[in-house]
């Protein structure tokens, strides 16, 4: 066969294992805890109890504060974490590398303003320097990634060529590490400053223009619904963790989510916020039970199998899958490189994506306004992420049912063959048993 699956599998692992992609993925993961906690402040305003809504109304703006400082500053946190994780791969000092990267990032994206005495009197804001925050959020993520990668690469370059100040032995490691970063830091900071103040070049705007083709996948349209699902399933089918394939689009998903959260603090509800295209859209409405909308298949295995392997495996994999952990079925059945399940593993989540897309654009279900932990069972996660919309629960159940219908014929074919194998094995055992007796 001309189609070498092992080779494709290795190539995909190579793409996913790219040093920068992995650092970006690990780095962006650090904002999840703060973003989840920040999100609770958004959904707190949306509890479906009228007396609570009336009570909370005066505090809606104040409740926005933790959101501003969590997901609203995500580029800042990510820059530090990406640089730190990349520095680790080069065995560089993580703290000093990440600190330099953050300074380079801030230099590139922030144009400080000033509050004069006159303005202070009018607004009540203390006199001093102020920083606009837009570029510190999802809007500045690409520059955060660039600053982190370039900074660590430059430090690595200098260290590899020994162009650093080394302290004599006996100086504490933390002191000598910070001196190690001194020369590359000077070069980086002067360069960033020259780009910003000398050339007057807006790196963030430049990057956003350069990457604008990617932005299409962050927009609220049909293509951005099906493309990430397709690639996610494809990666898993070759045995590689699928989430990596969406890394380049994450900044746009976060930007949309933050826009939704921000709209809520300004009085919108989950029904009226602007964007449906967020990570949560996929997490709770499409990847139900894990990639491939696989919970549907787990249910079929556990309750509709005639083969004993199907029943046994189904009972083992269904519980992790309820909490969206899909590796046990993906490698246990397996799904990986299994011709029986390749088609439904791609088609079922795409069908769920299309249904959810239709439901959201026709305002049948609220859009997502919060980042809630991905291990929540889909109906609960969807209910919370949509600001407590009970229709979201119905939608997840419909999506599970649709996925079951799509998996069913393939499951049936697999189960029949499995049963035949088991019966043949049992017959063979009986025969040898009879012969021995």
């Amino acid at each position, binding site marked *: 066969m001309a189609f070498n699956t092992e080779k494709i*599998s290795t190539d*995909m*692992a*190579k*793409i*996913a*294992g790219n040093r920068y992609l*992995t650092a970006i993925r*690990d780095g962006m*993961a650090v904002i999840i805890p703060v973003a989840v906690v920040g999100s609770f402040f958004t959904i707190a305003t949306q509890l479906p109890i009228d007396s609570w809504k009336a009570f909370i109304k005066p505090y809606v703006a104040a409740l926005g504060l933790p959101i501003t400082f969590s997901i609203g500053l995500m580029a800042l946190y990510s820059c530090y974490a990406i640089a730190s*994780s990349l520095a*680790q*791969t080069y065995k560089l000092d993580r703290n000093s590398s990440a600190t330099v990267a953050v300074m380079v990032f801030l230099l590139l994206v922030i144009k400080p303003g000033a509050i004069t005495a006159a303005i202070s009197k009018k607004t009540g804001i203390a006199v001093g320097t102020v920083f606009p925050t837009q570029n510190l959020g999802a809007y500045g993520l690409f520059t955060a990634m660039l600053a982190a990668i370039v900074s660590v690469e430059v430090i690595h370059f200098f260290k590899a060529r020994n162009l650093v100040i080394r302290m004599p032995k006996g100086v504490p490691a933390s002191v000598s590490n910070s001196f190690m970063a001194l020369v590359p830091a000077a070069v980086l900071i002067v360069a960033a400053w020259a780009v910003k103040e000398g050339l007057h070049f807006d790196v963030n705007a430049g990057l956003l223009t350069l990457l604008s083709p990617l932005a299409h996948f962050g927009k609220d349209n049909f293509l951005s619904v099906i493309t990430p699902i397709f690639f996610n399933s494809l990666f*898993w089918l070759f*045995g*590689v*963790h699928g*989430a*990596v394939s969406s890394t380049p689009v994450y900044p746009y998903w976060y930007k949309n989510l933050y826009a939704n959260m921000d709209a809520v603090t300004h009085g919108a509800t989950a029904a009226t916020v602007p964007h449906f295209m967020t990570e949560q859209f996929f997490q709770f409405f499409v990847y139900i039970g894990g990639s491939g909308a696989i919970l549907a298949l787990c249910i079929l295995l556990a309750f509709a199998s005639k083969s004993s392997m199907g029943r*046994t*495996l189904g009972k*083992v994999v269904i519980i*992790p899958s309820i909490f969206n*952990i*899909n*590796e*046990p079925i*993906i*490698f*246990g059945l*397996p799904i*990986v490189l299994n011709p029986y399940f390749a088609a439904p593993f791609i088609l079922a989540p795409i069908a769920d994506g299309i249904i959810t897309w239709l439901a959201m654009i026709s305002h049948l279900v609220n859009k997502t306004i919060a980042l809630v932990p991905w*291990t929540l069972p889909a109906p609960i996660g969807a209910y919370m992420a949509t600001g407590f919309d009970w229709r979201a629960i119905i939608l997840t159940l419909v999506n599970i049912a649709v996925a079951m219908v799509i998996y069913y014929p393939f499951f049936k074919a697999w189960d029949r063959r499995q049963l035949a194998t088991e019966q043949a094995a049992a017959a063979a055992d009986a025969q040898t048993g009879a012969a021995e007796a």
Partner: protein
Amino acid sequence: MRILLSCSGGMSSSLIAEALSDEAKKRSVDLAVDATGSESVADDLDEKQYDAVLLAPQTVYRKDAIKAEADSHHIPFLMIPRLMYSPLQAGKLLDLVNEKLGK
């Protein structure tokens, strides 16, 4: 023997780690298994003494980096074969661990 089992986020590996420990207990083999995410492997190895590092098949994209970590701590590294990464295959996985890491 204490082994570190890494997947991408430390979620699925904890299920496999549990199944593997249960299997070891059944055979009264002395084996402790800790689950972790691939980005914490370096820290985990610095913190505790492990006898081997196992990596989940879907995290194959981190193979080189994790193997390098194991090498730098002078302990064996083992990529778990796809068909053994399932709670039902813990017996086979334990056989493989015993065979590869030698008792």
